[in-house]
Structures are given as C-alpha cells and as structure tokens.
C-alpha cells in the first residue's frame, strides 16, 4: 500500500479555480462516499479549506489511482481535465507525509503560521474517520500531523505576532491595559477600518464603545453593529476625557484632535495611559500628541510596520519549522518501516510456536507421568526458550530502516524457516501499508 496525495492550493491554482474545486460546496462526506467506492483505494481523507482542496488516499497502485483521482476531481467539480491538470500536484509516500506535516504546521499556508489550518486538518480527519474512510495508517498519519502542528508552533515563533492591522491594534491595547473589560472606546469616524477595529474591540468585551461621525446615520449604523452608542460630532473634545482607547478614521484633511486637546484630556487623567489609533489618512491626530507622557499614539503606518515586522519574523522562523517537520517525517518513516517487518516477525513467531506445540504433543505420552505442576513448568520453560530465541531477531528486524534490507531479511527468513507465503488472517487485506509488502511474507497486523 502506498500513500498518494492529490490536490490544488494557493501555490498552484488561481482563486477562481480553487473556488470551483472546493469540496465544501457539495459537502466533504459526499466526496468521501464517492472516493471510497474507487476499487484500489483502502483509506481516504479530504482536506478542504478556502486555500486548498486535497485528497489523501492509500492504494496499491498510485500511478493509476493518480489518474483516477484527476478524473474524479474533473468530473466531480465539473471542470475540464485539461483545465484542471496543470494546477494539480501529486505527491507520493514521504513527500505526501511531508506535505501534510507542513500544512498542519502552517508552513504551507498563505499567511505563514496561521492557526486555523490545524483545526481544518483535524476536521478533515474527523469527517473521514466518522465515515469509516480511515484505517491504521491514515489514523496514525493524521494524529502525527496534529502533534507536528503543535510542536512547530510551540518550539518556533511561527505563530507569534499580529499579522493584520486591526489585530495589531488590539494586541497593543492589551499590552498597555491588560484586560480591556473596563476600558471605554471612542471611535471618531465610521469607515470600514473603524468598523473592523471596533468589532475586534467588542470581542474583547470592552466596557463601552462610543461612535462619533460627521454623518449621524453612519455613526448610528456602526454603533448598532458593535453594540455601542453614538455621540454628537460637536462633543468630541468632551468625550475624549472619558475614553481610554481612541480610534480615529475620518477622511478629514486637517487634524480632528490636536495636541492641545490631548494636553487638556491628560490633566485629569494624570498618569493613566491613553491609547490612540489614528488609522485615518491624512492623519486625524496631531503627531506631537504622542510626545505626551502616557499617550501611546500609533498611526496606520506604525501599525502596518508592526505587521510587516511580525511577518518578517514569522518568515525567519520558517527554516526552524522546516527542520522540525523534516525530523518528524524521518521519525514517521522509521515507524512505517518498522511496520514492514511486522508480518515477518509474526510469521516467524507462529512458526516457532507451532514447532513447540507439535513437539509437546509428540512428547505427550512421555510427559503423561508428570504431575500437573511439572507439565506446566515444561510448558513455561519451552515458551520462555522460544521467546528468548526470538527476542534479538525481532528487535533487529524492527530496527532496520532500509526497505530493501527488510525485504532481503524477510526473504531469507522465509526460506530458512519455511514461512507461509500468505497470511491466514482474513482481515489482512484491510490493513494497508505504505511500504510495499515484503516478498512472500504474510500480511498480518
């Protein structure tokens, strides 16, 4: 059994095509039910986000399954194959494992380190698992990817720092005030940016949001959206006094709030901090206001440069993240290869056990005179003998990383101990393996 990944993402396909091949439009379960009907596929999962549509499948012939999956994507989404094919990528085995691990860790995301993707990978697995589309290998692979995602996030700074202007503003406010629950917010202007910031602030459960706009109707509309109240435009300077956070986003060509206004406001506030986000262009707050003690004035460029710094910092963590992913891919592959030896180990143990049992049966007449305790002792001693004989070969077989070497050992053992060619397990075929079956070894476990 081999792992195959087929998909398209923001790296390979334009947004128009990504929208058309989005599995969530018709529902992932429906796609899973069609995919699980494909004869060579034993396990399958579908990862569908706004930036990627991917199918992970276990099969015995990845070349033909790859073709089948391209045709499936084409017919399922009603996109001509000729249009789809150039934007599709196909990965096999280790490359597919690496791709999933990178995706779960956010290394493959449009916004590097974004946290949603890990949840989306988990959802993809849960859906596939609930529809009985996963087996031993995809189960292990996906759970491993969750751990990789967490590890990369906790051991690198890949997910740190705000990467949007409005979130950067909230992070700043929290760094100044701690909890924002008792803080009053004054919004001056009711544009799109003001609304976005106000929505974020509302999610932080700020005490009160007041909205002032030259157009009273727009102020009322925004106030209603963010559960705030409106204040008359003429009263802005008096409203400044009670605000801890001021967001200005008007189209005014002259400053709305002057240094003198802030000086007046800060007198009764004394050393209580005041955070001003001036996201208007041209600026709404006189820049020298930021020189006043305990006034933290950030304009749109300041916030953008913070976002840029955070993005750069995240990019600088990419290499560390890639190294961690590579380490985990190696570990996963070692685990997989150790599984390749399992059928041989099981067959060997069965062979030894059958010899032991038949020898004990043959000696049955001679052992009949022994007491039950002594017979039990004989049974135990022979069992221990077999265990000890097999201990070193078992461990050695499991520790071999080289696939060809495992096959060579298995071949030798099959010949030396006359191991059976086929497994007697009925469910062996349902247990897929990434590594090709070892020659003439039974496919158990």
């Amino acid at each position: 059994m081999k792992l195959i990944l087929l998909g398209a993402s923001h790296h390979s396909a334009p947004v128009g095509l990504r929208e058309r091949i989005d599995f969530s439009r018709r529902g992932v379960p429906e796609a899973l039910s069609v995919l699980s009907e494909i004869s060579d596929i034993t396990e399958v999962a579908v990862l569908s986000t706004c930036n990627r549509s991917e199918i992970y499948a276990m099969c015995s012939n990845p070349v033909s399954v790859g073709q089948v999956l391209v045709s499936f994507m084409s017919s399922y989404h009603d996109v001509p194959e000729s249009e789809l094919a150039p934007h599709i990528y196909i990965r096999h085995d280790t490359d597919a494992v690496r791709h999933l691990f990178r995706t779960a860790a956010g290394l493959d995301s449009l916004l590097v380190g974004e946290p949603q993707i890990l949840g989306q990978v988990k959802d993809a697995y849960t859906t596939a698992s609930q529809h009985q589309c996963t087996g031993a290998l995809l189960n292990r692979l996906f759970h491993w990817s969750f751990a990789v995602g967490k590890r990369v996030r906790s051991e690198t700074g890949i997910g740190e720092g705000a990467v949007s202007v409005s979130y950067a503003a909230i992070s700043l406010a929290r760094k100044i005030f701690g909890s924002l629950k008792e803080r009053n917010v004054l919004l001056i202007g009711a544009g799109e940016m003001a609304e976005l910031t106000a929505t974020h602030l509302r999610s932080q459960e700020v005490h009160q949001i007041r909205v002032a706009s030259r157009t009273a109707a727009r102020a009322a509309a925004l106030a209603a959206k963010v559960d705030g109240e409106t204040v008359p435009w003429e009263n802005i300077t008096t409203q400044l006094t009670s605000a801890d956070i001021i967001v200005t986003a008007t189209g005014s060509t002259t400053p709305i709030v002057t240094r003198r206004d802030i000086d007046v406001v800060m007198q009764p506030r004394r050393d209580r901090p005041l955070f001003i986000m001036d996201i208007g262009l041209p600026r709404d707050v006189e820049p020298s206001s930021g020189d006043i003690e305990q006034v933290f004035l950030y304009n749109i460029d300041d916030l953008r440069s913070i976002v840029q710094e955070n993005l750069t910092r995240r990019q600088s963590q990419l290499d560390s993240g890639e190294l961690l992913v590579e380490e985990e891919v190696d570990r996963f592959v070692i685990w997989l290869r150790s599984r390749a030896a399992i059928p041989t180990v099981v067959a060997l143990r069965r062979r030894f056990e059958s010899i032991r049992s038949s020898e004990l049966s043959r000696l049955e007449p001679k052992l009949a005179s022994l007491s039950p305790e002594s017979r039990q002792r004989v049974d135990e001693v022979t069992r221990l003998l077999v265990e000890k004989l097999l201990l070193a070969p078992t461990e050695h077989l499991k520790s071999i990383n080289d696939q060809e070497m495992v096959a060579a050992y298995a071949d030798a053992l099959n010949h030396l101990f006359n191991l059976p060619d086929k497994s007697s397990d009925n469910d062996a075929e349902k247990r897929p393996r990434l590594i090709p079956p070892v020659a003439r070894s039974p496919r158990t476990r």
Partner: protein
Amino acid sequence: MNTFPFALYLVASVSYAVHFARRSESAGRIATVTLVLAALTHAFVIGMQTMQVGHIPFVGTTGAVSAFVCLLALAYLYSEMMTDERAMGVFVVPLMALLQVIPAITNSVAERPPSLDSPWFAVHVLALLCAYASFALACVVGVTYVLLFKELKAKHLGFFYARLPSLQVLDQMNSRAVSVGWFFLTLGLVVGTVWLLQVQSNTTDPRIQAMSLLDPKIFIVLLCWVVYSFALYARRSIGWSGRRAALLSTFGFTVLLLNFVPVSYFVTQSHNFY
C-alpha cells in the same frame, strides 16, 4: 552550607534566562522548581545556623544578606504564583545569586552581642528585611515597566513586548510591592527606635552608642523612607503612576542596596555587627 543554596540560585538564574530568551515552558518549570528548592534549602540552612548558635542569624551584614535573599526568593515565588507570570524571574533571581555570593564565601555566623538579645531587635531586622525584599521586587518590576514603556513609545515592538506582561499589570505589581515594603520599613524603623531608646542608656557598646540620625546607615534608610513615602503620596494624591512611579521605586532601591552592602561594610559606625 550557604554554597548549596547559592548553586541552586545560580541554576535557577540560568533556567529563568533560558525561559525568558527562548520562551521555553519546560525551562520555566525547571526554573520555578529549582528556585523553590533553593529557597527551601536556604531556609533549612538558616534553620541549622539558628540551632547552632541559638538565635536567628540576623546579626552582621552576612547573616542579613542571607536572610534577605531567602525572603526575596519567597516574596518572588509568592508573586509568581499570584500573577502566574515568570517573566520577572530573569531580573530578580540573578540578584539573589549575586547577593548569595557573600554568605557563600563568608560562611560564618556572627556572634550576637548581649546588647542585641531582645525580641525588639529580631522584629526590627525581620521587618526591614521584608521591606528590602518588597522594594527589590518593586525595583525589578519598575525596571521592566520602563523597558516595555520605551518599546511602546518608540513603536519598536520587540524583545520585551513579546515577553513581559502588560504595563497595567506591572504598574499594579509595583504599587503593591511599594505599599507592602513601606509598611515593613515603617514598622522596622519604629520598632528599632523603641528598642534603641530602651538599650542606649544601659549599654557601653560603641556601635549602639553611635546610632543616631547622623550615622550614614540610619540617615540613608530614613532618606529611603522619605523617597518611598513620597512615592506612595505621589501615586495617591498627585496621580504619579506608571513610568514615574517605576523610576522612583528603582531609585529608592538603588539607594537601599548601597546602604545594604557597601555602607554596612565600610562606612557605618553603628550597624557593623560582623
């Protein structure tokens, strides 16, 4: 015996530094556990010394420094538990390791002159040591406040922004530490004065006779009391909080630290019981 706690303080310092620099949770846990072990070992050492000489080894700068470090460790651990914030450790714990060098090298307990055999004396020293520990915490919190404040004002968010709690939290911690410290400082000074009035007329010990407002150690500690009293007054009545309060507490503790070590060893005529 003081070498064991010193070694543990050193390990804890390194662990807190690793935790701060790499934001490693496991290093943080190791740091806290090591510091708890250091404080317990230190308390055990002080307990053993108490059994050995029959009184708490507060007498002399060495004993006082050792007790101060132990109290500072306990005060810091308390604040770490209360705020669930380990970032301060990198600033406080190295100070403990540094000061613990003195008892680790000296490693002897000063004899207590008969004139100091009074419960008033014990309360006086213990209260002042608690005050010093609180002021040390306030100072460290103040320094971190200023560092974060500068980053926020300069709009260059980096190292401290990513690692320190909010300005508001730091300001509250500073305010509490200064209030607690001021209470103990006042208590220590009042008890010391009462005890001095009792013993000064009955003893010929020149060190006790030298205790007056003009003695450098007493003069400076009173100056500190004025500084911290002003800090409290300024916060409540003038509205000085934030950076100004942080700088005041840092200034106050710098003076205290000078008084605690160099003045005690080399200048004062009154408090040199070593």
